[in-house]
């Protein structure tokens, strides 16, 4: 071999080579073993080719490591076309000598074997390519085609083993893909030759939905994440979702954000929700969960923040139209780029896929607020435990970014149980319960705050009324006869009002009576006084006359006596 041999990394420390595949390097604690071969095994359509190609392309574009992609199946044009949809411009990378794609075409019906041979030509070909661009990475997809294309398997086995040793000697990091066998990891037992690192890709059907999963079967000389990691192949390639990559050491904010309803803010210690907290709105059908959510969204956009509306039932137009009826104009926020809808049908994907897509959307839009309406629909595609696990990750993921999350949840049956369908109440910071109350042939909506961590909140049940200018929270009627809402409250209030009016009237009446009586007495007193005066004057008159008479009488007697005295003296 004319190629100069670059030594593999020293034995003292394992060098890790990042793949650039989202999430994968985290669970690999850095990446693939440098200068060694890694087997990526999986069934048809499990994403092996994607894995290999991402490794090569990310290496060339992000880590300045040129790479060789040896395709034993697809031809170069097909690969270029297939990866163009992922914005991998293979043609440009080839022109820039950052990657080489080599299609090793083995067509059974064109080939005959006779006598002894080896695969030296493959080594020469690969060696030449590695030298021409200084490649550090190689992907062989899938070398097993040699087994189906050639009959002398003993030779192929020996040669493949030699190839892996040779690649190791050259110090290139290699990904070898292999088709999954019935009882073995790969159909032709490639795992026997690759001792350093084995990764299994799997595409399983659960609940009629396929979910891709990845597992690290072995990684010699390194610790790695264990368990199965769901992954998504989307527009941005493979995204692996390891729970271990979620940070739980995030800082919590003391800041609060308005609920969009002044009375509601008042109920929450006069502040609102904590920024970056998780709010769950549970309610039976038609209790106004979405409307409450719309207020949250509207308030967020009003503050100038961005909000992602993840709708699992209604589409964008429907929500915008419906919310207009309660006086909330969401369209303006969409137009201003503050509100984005992510409409997903629950049955469209597996539960993990939903999580990945939501994360993907959040990564791109970078909202400060997220509304998920409703989370209950996830139970359609996953069991309670799966949904809970997904929601835990979702909450952690968004909390770590300081995103305020509101989730709505449809609850059924006896709401007194207060048992949410998805059992996530322990993860929730603020839990609002909306329920229907039935009174006298009428349903009323009531809102309670079941809990709100870290703040003093109201324990009162408020009546929840939706009007053309938004949600109104009314105080219920609280009286000696009980707590009433709705029209019962109104009638109770009317009854009370009538009683008050009656009493008021009575008081007025008494007032009037009093006044009348007073006037009456006054009049009577006037009459008595007049009579008194009359009688007084009459009596006085009589008295005067009597005295006069007396005087007169007394005057007559004197005169008489005087006259008598005069007569008697003369005789």
């Amino acid at each position, binding site marked *: 071999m*004319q190629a100069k041999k670059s030594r593999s990394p020293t034995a003292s420390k394992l060098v890790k080579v990042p793949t650039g595949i989202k999430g994968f390097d985290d669970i690999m604690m850095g990446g693939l073993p440098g200068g060694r071969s890694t087997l990526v095994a999986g069934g048809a359509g499990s994403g092996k080719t994607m894995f290999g190609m991402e490794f090569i392309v990310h290496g060339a574009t992000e880590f300045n490591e040129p790479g060789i992609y040896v395709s034993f199946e697809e031809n170069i044009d097909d690969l270029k076309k297939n990866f163009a949809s992922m914005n991998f411009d293979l043609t440009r990378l080839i022109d820039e000598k950052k990657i080489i794609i*080599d299609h*090793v*075409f*083995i067509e059974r019906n*064109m*080939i*005959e*074997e*006779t*006598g*002894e*041979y*080896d*695969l*030296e*030509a*493959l080594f*020469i*070909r690969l*060696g*030449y390519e590695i030298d021409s661009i200084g490649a550090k990475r190689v992907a062989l997809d899938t070398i097993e085609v*040699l087994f189906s294309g*050639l009959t002398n398997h003993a030779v192929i086995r020996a040669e493949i083993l030699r190839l892996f040793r040779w690649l190791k000697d050259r110090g290139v990091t290699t990904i070898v893909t292999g088709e999954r066998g019935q009882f073995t990891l790969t159909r032709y037992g490639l795992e026997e030759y690759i001792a350093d690192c084995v990764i299994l890709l799997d595409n399983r059907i659960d609940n009629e939905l396929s979910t891709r999963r990845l597992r690290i079967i072995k990684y010699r000389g390194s610790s790695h994440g264990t368990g199965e990691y769901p992954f998504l192949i989307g527009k941005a390639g493979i995204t692996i979702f390891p729970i271990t990559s979620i940070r739980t050491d995030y800082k919590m904010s003391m800041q609060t954000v308005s609920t969009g309803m002044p009375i509601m803010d008042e109920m929450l210690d006069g502040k609102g929700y904590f920024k970056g907290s998780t709010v769950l709105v549970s309610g039976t059908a038609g209790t106004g969960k979405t409307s409450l959510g719309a207020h949250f969204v509207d308030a967020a956009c009003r503050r100038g923040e961005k909000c992602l509306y993840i709708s699992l039932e209604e589409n964008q137009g429907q929500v915008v139209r419906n919310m207009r009826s309660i006086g909330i104009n969401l369209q303006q926020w969409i137009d201003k780029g503050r509100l984005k809808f992510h409409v997903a049908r629950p049955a469209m994907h597996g539960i993990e896929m939903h999580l990945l897509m939501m994360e993907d959307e959040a990564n791109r839009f970078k909202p400060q607020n997220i509304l998920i309406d409703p989370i209950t629909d996830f139970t359609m595609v996953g069991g309670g435990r799966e949904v809970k696990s997904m929601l835990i990750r979702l909450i952690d993921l968004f909390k770590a970014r300081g995103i305020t999350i509101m989730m709505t949840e449809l609850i059924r049956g006896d709401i007194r149980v207060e048992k949410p369908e998805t059992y996530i109440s322990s993860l929730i910071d603020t839990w609002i319960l909306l329920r229907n109350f039935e009174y006298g042939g009428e349903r009323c909506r009531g809102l309670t705050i079941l809990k709100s961590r870290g703040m003093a909140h109201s324990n009162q049940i408020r009546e929840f009324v939706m009007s053309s200018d938004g949600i109104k929270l009314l105080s219920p009627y609280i009286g000696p006869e009980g707590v009433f809402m709705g029209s019962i409250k109104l009638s109770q209030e009317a009854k009370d009002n009538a009683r008050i009016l009656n009493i008021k009237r009575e008081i007025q009446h008494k007032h009037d009576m009093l006044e009348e009586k007073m006037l009456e007495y006054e009049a009577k007193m006037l009459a008595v006084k007049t009579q008194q005066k009359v009688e007084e004057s009459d009596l006085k008159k009589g008295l005067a006359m009597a005295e006069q008479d007396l005087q007169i009488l007394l005057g007559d007697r004197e005169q008489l006596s005087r006259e008598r005295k005069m007569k008697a003296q003369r005789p």
Partner: protein
Amino acid sequence: MAKENGVSEYLLRIYVAGETEKSKHAVRNLRKFCEEYMDCKYEIEIVDLMKHPQLAAGDQIFAIPTVVRKLPTPVKKLIGDLSATKKYWWAWTLSIELIGTDNNGRIGHSKIWW
């Protein structure tokens, strides 16, 4: 390389790696076959991939030695050093006109296409 003057009907290219005994053996076998059995004009090209590694991809060579029948089309490939080769097997593989006895023991030229 042409055995005779004129346009060759057959173009056979043999890929080897280095001037090893194995390579020489394969080339010898090919020459011998052609001289013995081929009645028409043919051409043999020898490509040493050690010297011209860039040529391996063009003819989709991954094993050594490989004989590629470039002409007539369609292209056919023989992998191996041609040691374990019998006459008819050769003919079958390369669909070459052979001189000698055919299956029925008749002498003359027989074109074998099966």
